[in-house]
């Protein structure tokens, strides 16, 4: 965290009243542009849903699966979205524990992104399984068959990890929202006022409330921190626990966690740039914030790059012919293009962040974040698909290309995510009012007592 320098606070810090007003302003009645955007997103979502129904009707064969590649784009998406989620919790929980003040302006966006990303990720295991109508068998509920589930299976780990993560991050988001909703409640009018009155749960900001609130928030953060690290470790074990060459590696947990945060921070940047513009938050989300996010990107990016190198080194050093073949195939086999996309986007592009100019240039950051997102999606694709296509049995090697159904559902998943995000951004404060206020000293009559 050494890289996270305290931002120099804005030249003229906004007064409490201004903060409330500015944030409340973002909740005004939506513009036409907003509705057009929402409409577009919903259309794409509908297409995705259509593709899914088609797949359920005729079977998974409509996807491009080609044995031995039994996992494809769906699991890739799952890992991708779970990964996205991580940065949110990192910024809101871990940085909270580290008391880094700069997070206050951005953490709400990140946290919302977390919840919606997990919500999206959670869909993919379902979309991916052959008999989605029996998905509930994955939970240990008492049934007349007297059967339980296999807790040795990494997939069951996933079930628990992802559902826990979804619950906890949602609670965390809601708890953080309460005082802010109360704040906008007291300035809002019309139906929104009703909405906020209910959702604020009667918050008034009394000394008693703040006292318990702060403790609870602290402990939630304390719980969320190991959780966020565990979730992607668990996801990585889906692969590391198996015997597939290219999967079976001890480095996977840290490698995946770093990658997760990397991709997550990238998406935060992708979201913040337009948000800042549309909501006129330039005063709150400043170059400092992007600078810090960039440093985060740089750090995690370097870890990821290092992990790539380690993988190849170990494949060679282990002398295991299967590992060697797998990695040779990654770099120079049918899927070389995917591999090199991933390496360039994830390991080389972040090097530009060394330059302060790039870090503080919003357009540059935006473009860079897009590339990182692309690269991280391909990282998962390479790890999953390419490893599976060349396993132990040469006779059974195969080549997989996704079908239109898979692409449609991938787009649908982005639409699903943005539907939630758009609805949230327009109806709930995307910048934490109380926490921004907290770091700004309140006005005083006389000189501060010592």
């Amino acid at each position, binding site marked *: 965290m050494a890289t996270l320098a305290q931002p120099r606070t804005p030249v003229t810090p906004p007064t409490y009243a201004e903060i409330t007003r500015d944030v409340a302003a973002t909740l005004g009645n939506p513009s036409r542009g907003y509705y057009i955007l929402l409409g577009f997103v919903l259309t794409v979502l509908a297409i995705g849903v259509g593709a899914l129904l088609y797949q359920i009707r005729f079977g998974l064969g409509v996807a491009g699966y080609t044995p031995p590649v039994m996992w494809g784009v769906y699991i890739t998406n799952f890992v991708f979205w779970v990964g996205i989620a991580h940065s949110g919790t990192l910024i809101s929980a871990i940085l909270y524990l580290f008391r880094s003040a700069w997070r206050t302006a951005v953490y709400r966006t990140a946290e919302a992104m977390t919840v919606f990303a997990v919500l999206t990720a959670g869909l993919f295991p379902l979309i991916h399984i052959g008999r989605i109508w029996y998905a509930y068998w994955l939970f240990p509920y008492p*049934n*007349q*068959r*007297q059967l339980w589930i296999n807790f040795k299976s990494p997939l069951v780990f996933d079930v628990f990890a992802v559902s826990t993560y979804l619950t906890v991050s949602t609670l965390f988001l809601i708890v953080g929202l309460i005082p802010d909703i109360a704040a906008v409640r007291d300035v809002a009018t019309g139906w929104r006022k009703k909405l906020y009155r209910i959702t604020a749960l009667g918050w008034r900001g009394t000394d008693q409330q703040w006292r318990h609130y702060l403790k609870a928030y602290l402990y939630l953060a304390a719980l969320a921190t190991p959780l966020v690290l565990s979730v992607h470790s668990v996801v990585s074990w889906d692969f590391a626990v198996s015997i597939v060459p290219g999967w079976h590696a001890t480095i996977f947990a840290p490698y995946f966690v770093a990658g997760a945060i990397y991709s997550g921070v990238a998406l935060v940047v992708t979201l913040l740039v337009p948000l800042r513009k549309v909501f006129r938050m330039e005063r709150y989300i400043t170059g400092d914030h992007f600078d810090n996010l960039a440093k985060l990107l740089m750090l995690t990016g370097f870890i990821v790059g290092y992990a790539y190198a380690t993988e190849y080194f170990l494949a060679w050093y282990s002398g295991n012919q299967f590992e060697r073949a797998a990695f040779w195939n990654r770099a120079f086999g049918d899927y070389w293009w995917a591999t090199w996309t991933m390496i360039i986007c994830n390991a080389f592009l972040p090097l530009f962040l060394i330059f302060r100019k790039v870090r503080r240039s919003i357009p540059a950051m935006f473009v860079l974040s897009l590339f990182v997102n692309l690269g991280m999606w391909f990282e998962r694709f390479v790890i999953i698909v390419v490893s599976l296509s060349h396993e132990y049995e040469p006779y059974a090697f195969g080549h997989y290309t996704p079908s239109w159904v898979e692409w449609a559902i991938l787009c649908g998943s982005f639409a699903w995510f943005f539907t939630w995000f758009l609805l949230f951004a327009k109806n709930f404060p995307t910048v934490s009012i109380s926490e921004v206020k907290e770091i700004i000293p309140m006005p005083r009559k006389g000189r501060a007592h010592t």
Partner: protein
Amino acid sequence: MTKRVLLAAGVLGVGAALVALRYGAPSAGLRAQQDTTAARSAYVAPVDVDTARLPGPKQPVFYRHDIHAGQYEMDCRYCHFAAEVSRSPGMPTLSTCMGCHLVAGAGNPEVEKVRAAYNEGRPIEWIEIHRLPPFVQFPHNLHVAADLTCQDCHGPIERMPQVYQYASLKMGWCLDCHHEEDVTTECTVCHY
């Protein structure tokens, strides 16, 4: 007058059937019936029953187990001939029915249906009541050999004017018994 004659004929026919049965090895069905010997003369199937009230689906022919298996105490295997030797119990062929009903039960509209079907050479399409999903293998012969009576799974069939599903036939139901009797609960015993 004619009624009495027919009844006598019926009793004769069934008597013949029972004699024929004594040669069979003593089995579940048989024992089930010996248990009830005390109540032998006691049980007389009701002459008229309210078919509308009876549980279970309405069969094309109102065949009454309570008369055949109950009152006349015919052995189950007389009709369900394969229960001991095969995974499936076997459905009686029409010629089995006609064994008795050539003489017995004339005038009874239900019996007439059977005769008509036989003469037209068209089998009767009974509605299946005890139905297992196709991915379950249930060998009747092993369960008969394991000293289960038909009634254990099919209920007091000899008191049913119209057969209905007695047990749930769900996996849990099978397991309960398998646990009690400490029989294997190995999945591939039933599922393959």
